[in-house]
């Protein structure tokens, strides 16, 4: 069991050789924090493959995001990507990895561990930060900070029409070439962009090693050591690429053929060893566009309506790739959505998720004023 306290990472100390650390799927952690009304930089738990058994010693709000590790609250399936009220004595358990491998738990107020060099993230290797600089163990008791709102936490809802991430078994990961792509010939670049790679078992929070065709350098693997950016795909002498993640060393001496874009770093960290990865080249501007898109989603949660005390199961309907609004018999929205192009009296295949359960069915869609049923 690898469960650690993480926030968005430790910045300003990389010049002293201090790794950034922080949630590998930062988007999922920030999402969870936004749902329970926390500050963006609040600390939560990163739970890997096998989650903990967590007992709550006080009433609070929680949100679990990221991987689906089959969470249950007091024995009932816990819907992910939404805020849920937990009572004192409540027990959160996990019952098996179904999709992705890192789940995030945010608790209203955020976890209260000492701030070390500006961050609450755990640095496992140097043994500082987080909870006593280590992974959580049975019997550890963590506290939460007071919630931000004056009258207690203000949990938030999912943005209308938002379809929560799922991760699957094969992953298309977008990269920007460089900073040392010129250390590689066209064949090596083609190998990177046109092959499929398998995530090695020899992967951890520092980096993902990729099994597959080796990538050859023009001259050799060594460069004059320089800074390691997040997501760098470095290629050492054996030609086996490694993608550098949050616990990476701050500097390195191997040529970096490409760098994973920010928006795909979290999805990559959800890829399980043995699953496949293919790379797609994009430019920096595309990466920035996707960063802004994700920021807009997080802002929409933070500025959106508060969650109801007893929220309904989330129902999202996607028809031919387009999200649709769903209303109940009284015409009240079950989940709101961005308006798509109306289709009239036509049968479609549809996929719905209710309370974490997935359903596939056929649906007839007809135009009815501004809503589609």
């Amino acid at each position: 069991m690898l469960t650690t306290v993480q926030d968005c990472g430790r910045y300003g100390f990389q010049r002293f050789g201090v790794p950034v650390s922080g949630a590998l799927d930062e988007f999922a952690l920030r999402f969870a924090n936004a749902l329970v009304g926390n500050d963006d930089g609040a600390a939560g738990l990163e739970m890997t493959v096998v989650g903990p058994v967590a007992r709550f010693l006080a009433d609070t709000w929680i949100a679990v995001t990221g991987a689906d590790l089959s969470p249950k609250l007091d024995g009932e399936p816990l819907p992910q990507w939404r805020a849920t009220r937990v009572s004192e004595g409540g027990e959160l358990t996990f019952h098996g990895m179904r999709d992705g491998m890192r789940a995030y738990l945010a608790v209203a107020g955020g976890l209260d561990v000492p701030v070390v060099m500006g961050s609450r993230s755990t640095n496992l290797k140097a043994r500082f930060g987080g909870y006593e600089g280590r992974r959580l163990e049975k019997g550890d008791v963590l506290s939460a900070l007071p919630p931000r709102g004056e009258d207690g936490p203000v949990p938030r809802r999912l943005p209308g029409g938002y379809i929560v991430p799922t991760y699957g078994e094969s992953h298309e990961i977008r990269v920007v070439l460089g900073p040392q792509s010129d250390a590689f010939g066209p064949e090596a670049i083609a190998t990177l962009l046109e092959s499929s790679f398998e995530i090695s078992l020899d992967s951890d929070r520092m980096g993902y090693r990729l099994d597959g065709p080796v990538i050859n350098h023009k001259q050799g693997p060594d460069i004059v050591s320089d800074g390691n950016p997040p997501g760098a795909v470095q290629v050492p002498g054996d030609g086996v690429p490694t993608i550098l993640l949050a616990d990476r060393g701050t500097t390195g001496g191997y040529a970096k053929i490409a760098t994973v874009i920010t928006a795909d770093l979290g999805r990559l960290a959800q890829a399980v060893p043995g699953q496949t990865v293919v790379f797609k080249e994009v430019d920096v501007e595309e990466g920035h566009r996707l960063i802004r898109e994700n920021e807009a989603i997080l802002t929409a949660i933070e500025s959106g309506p508060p969650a109801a005390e007893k929220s309904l199961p989330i129902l999202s309907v996607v028809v031919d790739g387009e999200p649709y609004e769903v209303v109940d018999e009284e015409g009240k929205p079950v989940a709101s959505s961005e308006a798509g192009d109306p289709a009239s009296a036509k049968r479609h295949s549809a996929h719905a998720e209710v309370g974490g359960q997935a359903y596939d069915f056929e649906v007839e869609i007809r135009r009815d004023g501004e809503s589609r049923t």
Partner: protein
Amino acid sequence: MYETPLFLPAGDQALVVELGDAIDAGVNRRVHDLAQRVEAVEVAGVVDLIPAYRSLLVQYDATTTSLAALQSSLLKLCSDPGGQPLERPRVVHIPTLYGGEHGPDLPYVAEQCGMTTDEVVRVHSETEYLVHMMGFTPGFPYLGGLDERLATPRLATPRQEIPAGSVGIAESQTGVYPFASPGGWRLIGRTPVTMFDPVGEPPSLLAAGDYVRFTPLQSENDYAEVRGRVESGEFQVTVTAKQ
């Protein structure tokens, strides 16, 4: 040294500013000067900096700056060093006990170099070493400037554990281990000073761009005395301005 800096995108949240292509004290000085200026003028969107041998990695927040804006600010700082004068670099004096159990490889190094152990200590402690960059572990300095006569190959089989504070030589590099760790450097001495303390302010004794001088301690007693003062928080390393 390049005529104009190279800007190499390193993904969508970092940019490498490369000033040269070799390990060179002059190029490295420029890297630290640039880092200092980026901090001084608070270039918009900059989240973190990693100065290295011949380049500066600038990590930025794409929601508050664009690549073009960042690049143009950095280029301006490279080509127009005007504005505030830079601080003179620090020289950090690190008390070190050479030889004995703290520097078990000192006799080997002396033999390799055809010197006496006293000569090795004299040459090693007379040099001001430039901290080209930090990395490998928190607080580990990559020092440049080792006298070529002292270059010694690494151990064929690395030691399982090297004590924190060990001062060693590997090929043409010298350095200090901030934490106990495995390693293959030839150990010539050890400092009682704490190189890195996560809750210290600042956490790292050294910063990239500093100079280091190793000051020989005369005896085990001196070592123990300094270590005692380090542990009680009374010891301050000597820091002077680079002449």
